[in-house]
């Protein structure tokens, strides 16, 4: 157990080292969600005048930016793993006396940690342009949900990296999280969505996560919204984690 924890920590440190050594590589993933927030609120801000919207559009859209950041970070983890596979570094990891589960947890935990970077940047910019302060508890809930979603997307991206074993699969890794976040109540409350999108958003577990993060930014925290958000996040982590673990075990060759 202690050995596994050390491996997970080492993999996290390696992932953080990449940010320090190749900061240019992390910049698009950090900037893009904030650009998305500023762009969407500047363009669609008037939508908050519609009946059924509560709060201003900037605060409403913050969870979307936070989850976009988590999604980009999760996808980047898969792209980095694909690069490690191409360069042979991952084969050396497979030869190490470490269980596949520990390797997966290390890769995924590093995504969870790295997702805090775009999140902090986005919130700093968001608060400076007038996003409502949600409160400490609300922010803590949002942090756990954002990190958790980054881990879930990292599982998806890891499974794809292990399947295709090339960085050329990057668009597939990116588009999964991107679509999952947007086809929710991302832009408007459910009653204002068109019928087809409302049905899709209702089936999409990420909708629960977005609404869990949105508490505090818009409205108050409720137990019902919170537990549904955590249940949806854990469901995604378990399902996508099992898929990734299957890929990890098959990587034995």
């Amino acid at each position, binding site marked *: 157990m202690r050995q596994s924890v050390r491996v997970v920590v080492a993999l996290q440190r390696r992932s953080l080292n990449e940010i320090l050594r190749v900061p240019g590589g992390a910049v698009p993933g950090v900037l893009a969600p904030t650009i998305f927030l500023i762009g969407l609120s*500047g363009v669609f801000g008037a*939508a908050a005048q519609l009946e059924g919207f509560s709060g201003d559009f900037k605060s409403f859209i913050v969870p979307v930016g936070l989850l976009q950041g988590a999604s980009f970070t999760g996808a980047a983890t898969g792209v980095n793993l694909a690069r490690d596979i191409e360069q042979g570094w991952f084969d050396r990891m497979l030869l190490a006396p470490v269980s596949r589960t520990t390797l997966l947890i290390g890769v995924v935990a590093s995504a969870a940690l790295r997702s805090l970077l775009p999140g902090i940047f986005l919130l700093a910019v968001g608060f400076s342009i007038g996003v409502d302060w949600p409160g400490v508890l609300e922010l803590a809930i949002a942090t756990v949900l954002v990190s958790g979603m980054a881990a879930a997307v990292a599982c998806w991206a890891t499974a794809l990296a292990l399947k295709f074993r090339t960085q050329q699969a990057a668009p597939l890794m990116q588009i999964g999280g991107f679509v999952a976040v*947007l086809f929710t109540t991302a832009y408007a409350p459910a009653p204002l969505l068109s019928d087809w*999108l409302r049905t899709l958003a209702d089936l999409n577990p990420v909708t629960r996560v977005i609404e869990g993060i949105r508490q505090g930014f818009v409205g108050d925290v409720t137990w019902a919204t919170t537990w549904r958000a955590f249940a949806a996040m854990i469901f995604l982590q378990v399902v996508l984690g099992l898929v990734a673990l299957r890929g990890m075990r098959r990587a034995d060759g």
Partner: protein
Amino acid sequence: MTRIVLALAQRALRNALRRPQYLAPLIIFPSLFLAVNTGGLERTTELPGFPDVRGFLDFQLSAAITQSLLIGGVQAGIAQALEIEGGFFDRLATSPIPRTAIVFGRVLATVPLALFQVAAFLVIGLAFGAHIEGGWAGVALVLLIGSVAGAGFAAIGVALALRARNASLVQGIFPIAFVVLFLSSAFFPRDLLSAPASWIAAYNPLSYIAEGMRNPIIASISSEAVLEGLAAAAGLLGVMVGISIAALRGRLREA
């Protein structure tokens, strides 16, 4: 000169068509945004000040086309940068051809692609219930403005590639292209944008390009909107081809 430009354009187009990973983002990303924007914000057409349109999809079509053409410009830049990285550019530079043909060939290759992109989004729009109020003349005008704008965006990509000489750096401008598009009236009426987007949109050529293509889709053709769109697209093309040629000369001097 014309023969060489055509040959280089043909080569660039063939290479693009051979790589589906090159073509897929041109349609997939803007289609996803089109679907989400339309599904999530269709009720915004009820806002005071929103132009009279049959539906939000009609309004959003030109935004999706502009977005797709911008991605096409980034792709053209990446293709140019890959030729520099791979050494093909150096071979062209040492061959007995007018050097400007390198820029003109690449830019020309995007015209048929841009026509395909515009046509694809018009078909997608019609399939999901959009209307083109300007009829066939309107379709022709959207194709015309789209093809000129597509060539202009490709010239931006080429200029960047000649400066950066690195495909990943050119890829890095992708989010910036989005910022510039957000700071225009491509997605929402100019009167309903919040500051500072509303101020910048007034000077952003993308606003005029998107509005020029939007006009024949949502209303009977207005010569003012269409001519402004065409002028913005042609101006962008002229300026960016000039900058690309200057970048090419700088690159050749350094070589």
